[in-house]
């Protein structure tokens, strides 16, 4: 946009040089003299009672300095398993030694005795009464039982009327619903609007399906790592490769039971996170406690196999989905029952099952979601947690409906899309949104209504949505005597958010981008900051940087007015100078001159401050269209073309924004075509890149990004969060394209070649 000088331009990132020269220091690159190396020893059983842990042989190995187990955790909070292991690879303790190879050898010398217990890996098995009960046996009622129980309660409250016949009938019905009691439930969430059963009764067409989405790993390229140094005073310094160093500080303080002020966390450059690098992870506490025990710096680092065995991947789930529509395509009702596999730790993005409502308006909705335990590691966020899974189910089913009622899939979506002021099912009313614009942009980019396809080729479209978060953050801006501008904050940068902040400061202070630099502080020096995830950073920190720069601008104008003997209304900041707007002779002062002048004023040096804790964010949407070709003999599928349009509000740095879109799309294809963490009674069976294949340059064509800009009222220059929406529609886009190419629909991800071949066989047709 021409009205801006710096924002909206694809300038190189502030960290470009250090990244392309190998100078950037990541977690594993932090080294200190005398540093020890930690190795975690792990369960070799999937579900078992621990009878004994014997570390005596390991202790004897020369070079071993300390070994810790759960008994060394001061607060007793669970860090290592003590009584029982719940998955293969669960941490039992850690060793510190002078060399990583010695630490590994020592870990292998630890002897553990177990009493094996029965294993359950499938959520649909785990909810049954005869499944092994992994943690507290918290049984839960299912959705139909809940409705009846609610009716019973209501009836028994109504006085003066004899409801006994009705109560009896409902009790009998309840008795017939024993299959609705779920076991191993770790959490649940419910949402409803209207009356979904009535909605189905009124619908012309009702479609039902079960969708299975596997657990996948974030596969950030740098495995978890932390370095800790305990000082004799008791103070701790931790170098953490993390999405948010303030959360690491509070996490460690909690486990150790010590004050926040005793811990300084230095956030170092991180090799990707995608949600998997929030909060304390496997390496932080072991490094800290081993350093406390030995008085030496300790580095704890996972390898890739440990990442798969003991990382916190994105949750898989089974979603039963039902949608009712009228013959003209109007969506009437939708109902979801979801079981999320949260592994051995309560969690899982159950609340985001609500994403099945998509960006459509319809009156009747019901959503019941449960988190269910299995013998796997726990889960955590993965880029738009829960949304790709829910949207895969929703957008696959919508395509099926389009085929049944004979309507074009883009038209069907366009017809039902919400606009500003529309009611969000079980939500508020929609603010200004760019759903239709974004769908149209994608359709136009491929000339959708004139699309052509050869034999075994197909087109697919899907729509995904997400709303960025906004967390607390603060920025200081200083202006120096040479006219340079420096930003200081405590936000971790992965995707180029520092660059966006620098661009914004340059824009406000009207200086060249190159004149702005940026420093990230550790938790001792920087103001508090929310973690970098949930697409919050550009929205939050962009706003904060803008506030700080505007604050500095105010001070510059004030100083200039003073210096030029005029009122603040008669000066303006432009091209890095403050000039008189009313004088006869042009008079101006540069930023550098003003900064130098400020040093001898009563107000002192120029510092701008921006600080905020929340602003209402705006929903973003991503629409993707793919053209694929399926080989009906082998099932191999090639993505021939892929277009990704996204409403980003305003692209502060279009190159960075495209990069976010492209990266998300490829992660989406990975999930749809190839990635899946596989488990059996022995635990995770594909803990490496040979069996857990991720896409490379050879697998995916160029992504065609289309940037749509419907400004967010509260975003900096209108920007919305861009990191997460891009992954949300890809899974369904691919599935829909494969169906268009083959005539068969596969609701069980990933859509691997053998599944296509089998589906074609049972469908009795080769190709179409």
């Amino acid at each position, binding site marked *: 946009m021409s009205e801006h000088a710096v924002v909206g331009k*694809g300038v*190189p*990132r502030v*960290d*470009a*040089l*250090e*990244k*392309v*020269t*190998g*100078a*950037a*220091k*990541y977690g*594993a*690159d932090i*080294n200190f003299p005398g540093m020890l190396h930690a190795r975690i020893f792990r369960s070799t059983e999937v579900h078992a009672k621990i009878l004994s842990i014997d570390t005596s042989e390991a202790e004897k190995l020369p070079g071993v300095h300390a070994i810790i187990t759960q008994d060394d955790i001061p607060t007793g909070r669970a860090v290592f398993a003590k009584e029982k292991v719940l998955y293969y690879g669960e941490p039992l303790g850690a060793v510190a030694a002078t060399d990583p*190879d010695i630490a590994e050898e020592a870990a292998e010398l630890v002897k553990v005795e177990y009493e094996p217990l029965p294993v359950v890996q499938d959520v649909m098995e785990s909810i049954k009464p005869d499944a092994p009960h992994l943690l507290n046996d918290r049984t839960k009622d299912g959705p139909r039982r809940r409705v009846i129980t609610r009716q019973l309660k209501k009836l028994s409250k109504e006085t003066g009327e004899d409801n006994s016949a009705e109560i009896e009938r409902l009790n009998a019905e309840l008795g017939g619903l024993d299959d609705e009691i779920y076991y191993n439930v770790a959490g649940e969430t419910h949402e409803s609007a209207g009356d979904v059963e009535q909605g189905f009764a009124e619908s012309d067409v009702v479609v039902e399906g079960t969708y299975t989405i596997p657990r996948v790993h*974030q*596969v*950030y*390229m*740098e*495995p978890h790592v932390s370095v800790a140094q305990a000082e004799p005073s008791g103070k701790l310094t931790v170098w953490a490769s993390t999405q948010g160093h303030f959360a690491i500080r509070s996490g460690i303080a909690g486990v150790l039971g010590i004050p926040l002020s005793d811990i300084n966390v230095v956030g170092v*450059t*991180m*090799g*990707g*996170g*995608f949600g998997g690098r929030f909060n304390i992870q496997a390496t932080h506490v072991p490094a800290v406690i081993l350093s406390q025990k030995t008085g030496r710096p300790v580095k704890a680092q996972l*390898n*890739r196999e440990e990442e798969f065995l003991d990382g916190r991947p994105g949750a898989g789930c089974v979603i039963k989905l039902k949608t009712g529509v009228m013959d003209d395509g109007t969506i009437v009702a939708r109902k979801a029952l979801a079981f999320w596999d949260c592994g051995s730790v309560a969690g899982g993005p159950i609340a985001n099952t609500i994403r099945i409502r998509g960006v459509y308006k319809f009156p009747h909705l019901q959503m019941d979601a449960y988190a269910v335990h299995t013998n796997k590691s726990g889960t955590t966020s993965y880029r738009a947690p829960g949304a790709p899974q829910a949207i895969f189910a929703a957008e696959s089913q919508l395509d099926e409906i389009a085929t049944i009622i004979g309507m074009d899939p883009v038209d069907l979506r366009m017809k039902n899309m919400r606009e500003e002021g529309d009611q969000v099912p079980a939500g508020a009313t929609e603010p200004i949104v760019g759903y239709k614009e974004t769908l149209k942009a994608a359709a136009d980019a491929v000339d959708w209504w004139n699309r052509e396809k050869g034999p075994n080729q197909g087109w697919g479209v899907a729509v995904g949505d997400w709303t960025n978060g906004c967390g607390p953050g603060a920025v200081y801006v200083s202006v120096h005597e040479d006219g340079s501008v420096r930003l200081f904050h405590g936000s971790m940068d*992965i*995707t*180029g958010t520092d660059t966006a902040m620098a661009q914004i400061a340059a824009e406000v202070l009207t200086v060249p981008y190159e004149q702005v630099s940026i420093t990230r502080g550790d938790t001792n020096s920087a103001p508090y900051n929310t973690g970098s995830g949930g697409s919050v950073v550009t929205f939050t920190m962009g706003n904060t940087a803008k506030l700080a720069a505007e604050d500095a601008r105010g001070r510059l104008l004030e100083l200039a007015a003073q210096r030029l003997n005029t009122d603040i209304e008669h000066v303006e900041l432009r091209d890095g100078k403050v000039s008189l707007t009313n004088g006869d002779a042009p008079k101006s002062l540069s930023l550098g001159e003003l900064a130098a002048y400020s040093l001898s004023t009563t107000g002192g040096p120029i510092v701008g401050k921006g600080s905020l804790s929340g602003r209402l964010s705006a929903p973003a949407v991503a629409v993707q269209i793919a053209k694929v070709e399926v080989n009906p003999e082998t099932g191999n599928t090639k993505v021939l073309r892929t277009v990704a349009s996204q409403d980003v509000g305003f692209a502060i740095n279009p*190159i*960075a924004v*495209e*990069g976010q*879109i*492209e*990266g*998300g*799309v*490829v*992660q989406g294809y990975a999930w749809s075509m190839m990635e899946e963490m596989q488990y059996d009674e022995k635990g995770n069976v594909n803990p*490496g*890149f*040979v069996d857990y294949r*991720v*896409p*490379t*340059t*050879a*697998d*995916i064509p*160029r*992504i065609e990004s289309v940037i749509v800009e419907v400004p967010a009222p509260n975003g900096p220059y209108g920007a919305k969060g861009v990191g997460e929406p891009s992954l949300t529609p890809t899974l369904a886009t691919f599935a829909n394209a494969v169906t268009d190419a083959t005539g068969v629909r596969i609701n069980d991800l990933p859509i691997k070649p053998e599944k296509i071949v089998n589906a074609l066989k049972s469908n009795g047709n080769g190709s179409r």
Partner: protein
Amino acid sequence: MRKHPISFTVNGDLQELFVEPRKTLLAVIRDTIGLTGTKEGCSTGDCGACTVIVDGEPVTSCMMLGVSANGKEVTTIEGISNPGELHPVQQAFLEKGGYQCGFCTPGFIMAAKALLDDNPDIPEDEMRHALGGNICRCTGYTKIIEAVLSAAETMRANA
């Protein structure tokens, strides 16, 4: 464990070291010599983050023992630019936005450099296959391929 004497060059500097036979070239470069630009993403030869150039060939240094580097010439990411002057592949990654977190970047740049040193005319589809041993989880590869294509152009012009 007994250490073996080895002698080889890294970025032109002679290194004479005593190395345990179990240490990989990657461990020697990062931990013994202290050049941390080369990254470890998997330690099984499957991600390319540790790619260096040994006697002109791209090598995943996690799969080569340090002792096998004896007598060889090793180039790492730290050895391909001069102060104030990036290698064309680095320059192209910078300009095209061919990185995000940057963890795969040193390995990718070294693999691309070796590829283009060998054949700066390589067509895109062959390039995509040749670089298929390097995983990037952030970029989706579109801008990486753009960068390598643009570097190829520069290198052809410079040749």
